[in-house]
């Protein structure tokens, strides 16, 4: 116990983004056993299952109760700036002064949409994943889902199954089997130390921080949801959406290479897993290795789609998210609008960042990554308050 006086400011309720910004069917992409917060693991009877949205909210609420977190709910921070030897915050519930501040507002506050989004012809409804809730919310008819990471593939699957034919525009994506050799892919990455890889152990951490999410879904069937699974169900696959011009969507001709890059990356991950299994004597305990069929791409994927023909009624921008720092009045952003930091230590004394992709470790953006990062950063924070000058 460090006994540092603190408060947690929450714009809504605990688990707010899960309450207000997620679609209905979403489950955590990590298995139950992996939702490990300090002193608060999984003790249910379905360790390999995936929490639903209400279960995830309940999990976060219980943790807040168990640790008696001093959460002040319905308090939106409207500005944060450096003053004297600390920070001054304005909130919808009054002001705060503090010597140190931890920014844990997340990486996914705003849904990204492409610059050409306003060229979508009238009559087509566009939605971001934050606005989408369930297929019945959409008109009958075709849906163009743009983006094939975890969000795009899950929405494409659910919407296509509802009888609305989906065209999925796939750019850079990371393919992953849900279960490999009988174990969850997260189990392998956890055991083999992939998730514990540190920010200073990878060649290019800037690139590692930008890697798209794994194409995973958390279903009771523990099913793999890659592009082959989607096209087998009838989803039509195109390359990245390059632009919309004259009422026509134009797709890049690079789909084959996008899939080749992803298949090769997956092969390297499975090689790493197999080598680790052999070295650690696990080959007899798990199923034998296998490789996934290469991603199937038709000979000439469509390069265009007429958006005024009535075939497409809805476009969903599953083109990623970005953080919202509109309230941050501190010169700590880089030219792309991201906070500059070294493993969560922001170049503004006493300011820290948490919960961002590959902040200090590959698992930093997972629930399971919060404990280790918090331990490291709170040690730094305590030393700072004690007057030391850590790195």
């Amino acid at each position: 116990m460090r006994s540092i006086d603190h408060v947690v400011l929450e714009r809504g309720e605990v688990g707010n983004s899960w309450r207000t910004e997620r679609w209905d069917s979403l489950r955590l992409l990590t298995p139950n056993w992996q939702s490990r917060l300090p002193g608060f693991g999984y003790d249910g009877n379905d360790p390999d299952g995936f929490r639903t949205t209400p279960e995830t909210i309940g999990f976060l609420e219980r943790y807040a109760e168990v640790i008696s977190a001093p959460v002040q709910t319905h308090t939106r921070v409207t500005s944060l700036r450096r003053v004297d030897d600390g920070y001054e915050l304005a909130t919808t519930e009054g002001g705060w002064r503090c010597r140190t501040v931890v920014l844990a507002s997340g990486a996914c506050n705003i849904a990204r949409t492409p610059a050409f989004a306003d060229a979508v012809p009238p009559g087509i409804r566009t939605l971001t994943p934050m606005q989408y809730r369930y297929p019945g919310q959409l008109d009958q008819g075709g849906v163009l889902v743009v983006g094939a990471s975890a969000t795009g593939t899950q929405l494409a699957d659910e919407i296509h199954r509802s009888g609305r034919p989906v065209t999925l525009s796939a750019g850079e994506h990371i393919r992953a089997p849900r279960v490999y050799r009988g174990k969850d892919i997260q189990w392998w990455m956890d055991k083999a130390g992939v998730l514990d890889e540190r920010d200073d152990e990878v060649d290019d951490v800037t690139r590692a921080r930008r890697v798209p999410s794994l194409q995973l879904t958390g279903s009771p069937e523990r099913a793999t949801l890659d592009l082959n699974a989607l096209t087998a169900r009838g989803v039509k696959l195109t390359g990245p959406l390059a632009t919309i011009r004259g009422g026509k969507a134009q797709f890049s001709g690079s789909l084959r290479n996008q899939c080749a890059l992803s298949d090769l990356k997956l092969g390297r991950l499975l090689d790493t897993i197999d080598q680790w299994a052999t070295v650690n004597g696990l080959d007899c305990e798990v199923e034998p290795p296998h490789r996934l069929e290469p991603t199937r791409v038709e000979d000439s994927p469509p390069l265009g789609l007429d958006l005024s023909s009535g075939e497409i009624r809805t476009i969903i921008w599953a083109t990623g998210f970005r953080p919202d720092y509109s309230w941050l009045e501190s010169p700590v952003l880089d030219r792309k609008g991201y906070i500059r930091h070294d493993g969560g230590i922001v170049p503004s004394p006493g300011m820290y960042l948490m919960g961002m992709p590959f902040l200090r470790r590959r698992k930093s953006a997972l629930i399971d990554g919060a404990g280790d990062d918090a331990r490291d950063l709170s040690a730094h924070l305590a030393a700072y308050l004690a007057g030391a000058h850590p790195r």
Partner: protein
Amino acid sequence: MSHAGKNTKVDNGVNVEALLGAREALTAAPEAAKFTWRAKCEWLNGVHSHSTIEGFYGLGQEQSRKKKFTFDADHPEVFAAEDSGATPVEYVLVALASCLTGGIAAVAQNRGIQLRSVSATVEGGMDLQGILGIDRDVRNGFDGIKVTYNIDADATPEEIRALVAQSQKRSAVYDVITNPTNVTVNVA
């Protein structure tokens, strides 16, 4: 996720240190990264033209070349032309193949992979009913381009496939061909 291992003896004739240094410098000074490439083209006779390449703009200033590069473009005799140079669309194939091939060497050097030989054949299919205005449903340009590489290198087949994939990911000409580009043609 290891590549063939960083062997310092690997030499594909690519100065990776200089390229990585440039990457770092241009990250810090993004304005210097803005380049403008130029060519000049002079009509000679018929569909025969003569193009020259000399300077370009980059790193914040005009840059000159050691020598002038020239290109004759014409069409084969079956087009009732003189065949005094490659067809413009063939220059596009040359541009794609040379861009990807250079990229393969650079990526291989960076990954510590010694190349022994790299050769590519490029094919672009085209239905002339497009440019001749016979069928408005047929486009003028290629209906598809196929590049086939033969690579001999100190690497596994997967590592070689990864070189070729990464080269496409970072190739300017591959991007130009696979994505739309705004083109403005003025008359001075």
